[in-house]
């Protein structure tokens, strides 16, 4: 009998189903990849019959497999896997140290070797200056190099890098992207938004497919070891498909992938993918309405604070209120087109003015083309205002919060970028929960590491790295936080009938935790051990 077809009976510890009809059954039986039964142990034994493997939880807690509703499982492998050099401020504390590390790596490089350094951070590298093309040429005259910001949205390159990517003074700046130039129109070092990701593909290609396959395996392992059985690929591009298919063909325990194709024009083909039994499917279309709060390209009603970080390291003008990525009519045309084709939309929005614009658009679209179950999603939602949450809720718009911003950048968000009032409602998950919205939480891996338990800790404590709390009123209770990484995350990706809770008929995606997260102090949530992960009834990882 194949591993997948095996029948298993789980008992002997708390079973948190996230199903309101049977929240804490004694036992669960899985069969042929599905949940077969949840209920009393005695009945479970009868139902299971003799050909069953019993799994004694021994006091540990069984939950539905965790879901990260906004991640990039393949792109994480491309962006962060070796040979990308990690220069995030956690280990490379200053800009000077970062440049020194680049020099050491360049000195050890093969002639012509492509090099990417990930993690330059205007908020966390205290002496940061914007690297210029000339400076990078001096450091690396013979190798194409790029320094990517930790928020992923911008890239600084040397001349060899620009050459490799085919970007020069004759290159038109694509709508929605940024190429900084000198007076003669020659790219001066920095590019941002969609063109960044296109340029990086040149480096990833240079490193070859073997490297990517290996790093993709590592990325898969990373999610599975954290009990995450469903992820998204939020910048899906058609040529990614081959890698997932190859992983599935090799029998790798790839979490289920909800793909959201990245749209940069209104005329892209979006394939109605559906591979295997809910292993990879096209969940919708993603568009970046604005950019990152950490490089200044988000659209705000109230300006950024004027501080050394915003004015010097981020190079913003006083009173900066940012802007949209695309001209408004261009963006609206894309959104209307893909919505019109029947796709569910997932819009990257950080600034409140951007959110106003998107909500206006959704209202107009729904007035003209009413659709019952549209599940229009807003991604990240850093500076969403309370009135916007009410409005979103009325329109049926759902928010997915990038709550790890608070743990990783909480101090500069409050002190350097937005001030205490806006910081107290930054990523307003509590207000959205109070409004009755089915929210999700995400780590946006590769931006932060995959762990739904860390997301729960961040959302329930809202503690920044330096120990301060950003907005106690926006804290979630444990149950709301757990819903946001299980059943409500499943709802946002349109799979609440098959994933996100333990209920007969659903996929047997499960995780065993060393402690029950609903009874663990918030501060200790991230330290709960993952004992085992099950995907489609198959045990794909254990800590034993």
């Amino acid at each position, binding site marked *: 009998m194949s591993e997948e077809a095996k029948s298993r009976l789980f008992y002997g510890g708390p079973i948190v189903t996230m199903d309101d009809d049977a929240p804490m059954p004694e036992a669960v039986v899985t069969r042929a990849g599905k949940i077969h039964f949840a209920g009393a142990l005695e009945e479970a034994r009868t139902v299971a019959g003799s050909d069953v493997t019993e799994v004694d939880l021994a006091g540990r807690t069984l939950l539905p497999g965790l879901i990260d509703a906004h991640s990039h499982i393949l792109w994480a492998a491309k962006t962060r896997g070796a040979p990308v050099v990690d220069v995030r401020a956690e*280990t*490379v504390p200053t800009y000077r140290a970062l440049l020194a590390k680049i020099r050491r790596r360049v000195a050890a490089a093969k002639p012509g070797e492509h090099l990417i350094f990930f993690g330059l951070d205007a908020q966390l590298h205290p002496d940061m200056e914007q690297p210029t093309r000339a400076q990078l040429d001096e450091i690396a005259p013979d190798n194409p190099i790029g320094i990517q910001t930790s928020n992923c949205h911008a890239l600084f390159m040397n001349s060899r890098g620009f050459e490799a990517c085919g970007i020069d003074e004759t290159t038109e700046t694509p709508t929605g992207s940024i190429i900084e130039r000198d007076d003669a129109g020659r790219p001066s070092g920095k590019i941002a938004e969609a063109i960044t990701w296109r340029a990086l593909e040149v480096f990833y290609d240079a490193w070859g497919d073997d490297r990517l396959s290996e790093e993709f395996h590592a990325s898969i392992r990373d999610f599975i070891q954290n009990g995450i059985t469903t992820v998204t690929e939020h910048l899906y591009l058609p040529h990614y498909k081959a890698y997932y298919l190859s992983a599935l063909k090799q029998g790798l325990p790839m979490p289920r992938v909800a793909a959201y194709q990245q749209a940069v024009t209104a005329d892209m083909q979006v394939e109605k993918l559906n591979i295997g039994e809910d292993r990879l499917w096209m969940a919708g279309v993603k568009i970046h309405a604005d950019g990152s709060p950490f490089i200044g390209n988000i659209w705000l009603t109230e300006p950024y604070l004027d501080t050394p970080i915003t004015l010097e390291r981020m190079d913003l003008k006083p009173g900066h209120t940012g802007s949209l990525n695309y001209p408004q009519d261009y963006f609206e045309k894309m959104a209307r087109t893909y919505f019109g084709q029947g796709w569910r939309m997932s819009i990257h929005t950080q600034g409140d003015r951007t959110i106003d614009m998107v909500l206006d658009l959704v209202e107009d679209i729904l007035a003209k083309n009413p659709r019952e179950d549209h599940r229009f999603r807003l991604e990240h939602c850093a500076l969403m205002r309370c009135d916007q949450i009410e409005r979103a809720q009325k329109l049926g718009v759902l928010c997915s919060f990038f709550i790890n911003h608070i743990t990783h950048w909480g101090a500069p968000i409050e002190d350097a970028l937005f001030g205490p009032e806006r910081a107290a409602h930054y990523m307003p998950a509590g207000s959205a929960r109070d409004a009755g919205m089915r929210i999700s939480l995400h780590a946006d891996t590769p931006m932060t590491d995959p762990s739904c338990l860390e997301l729960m800790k961040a959302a329930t404590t809202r503690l920044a790295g330096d120990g301060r709390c950003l907005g106690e009123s926006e804290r979630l209770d444990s149950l709301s936080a757990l819903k946001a990484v299980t059943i409500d995350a499943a709802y946002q990706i349109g799979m609440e009938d098959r994933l996100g809770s333990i209920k007969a008929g659903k996929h047997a995606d499960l995780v065993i935790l060393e402690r029950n997260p609903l009874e663990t102090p918030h501060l200790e949530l991230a330290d709960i051990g993952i004992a085992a992960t099950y995907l489609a009834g198959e045990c794909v990882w254990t800590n034993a």
Partner: protein
Amino acid sequence: MPEAAARVPLITIGGFLGAGKTTLVNQILEQAAGQRIVVFVNDFGAINIDYELIQTRDTDRISLKNGCVCCSLNDDLVESVAGFVKQPAPPDAIVIEASGIADPRALDSSLTMLETAGMVRSDAKLYVLDAANFQDLEFDDAETIIDHAAVNDIVLMNKSDLVRPEARGKIHDLLSEAAPYSQLVETVNCDIAIDMVFGAAPVSNKAAKPSSSALQTPQHAKTYQSWSCEFHGLLDREKFEVFAMSLPGKCLRAKGILRFSDAPDEPQLFNLVGYRATMEPKVQTEASALIRFVVIGLAETFDAAALEASFAQVVTEKTC
């Protein structure tokens, strides 16, 4: 929650296999001199404690006659630490030796949990680097060590007697760029003064006047110097903050009980290790307005006279 001042200082030791972490643990246990120290070690079998010093020995715990305890580092670090801290007489300090290759940050979430619970105060983070083997490392291994060193307060450049001065100079230059918030100390057999590890306890009754002295360690008798003072009086808070910010680079450690003119009845416990300083309210155990302050640094860069002069600028009131 226990009073802040009751929090037990917690020190971590990191470093690659063979760098000298266990040697450092032994140094600490031998030099404990009356302090009750609890040490958690990764490789329990490698601990080589003089038979004469041992009181009892179990499978995962050795109790020493001097009151120190050495435990095996197990899965329940948080619980084990909490167990010691909650004892009626908690230890004076806790030391954790991290596992060989692991990222030193792997301990961070446990430490944060213990700190937030008010049980420990994260004190020095020490990293042992093997100077003799550093120059022969593969590029990736060297980079890993550099990354790890950068998140520690004090880096011991150990086995420094086995490398030429030029090689030592190279490591100095490299780390001054790559690990700007770490202080580098050359050691042989990890012979760092225990006061450098724990911060000198500013509680001696003899140093009523400013004094400076050389610290005694087995091999490097004159490597370190200290300056301390003790008097009744008050300090200017703003001036002290400026003074404290000038200390990194001039010393490795500073510690004191301070009183400020804007809140004379709220003594503060000040701690500086490397580039990291903390200040927290101290439980008032004595009525007097005593200020105690001690600074320790490397002899070659230490200027006791200059420290004394700048500290004098901070004092607003002095009665004896």
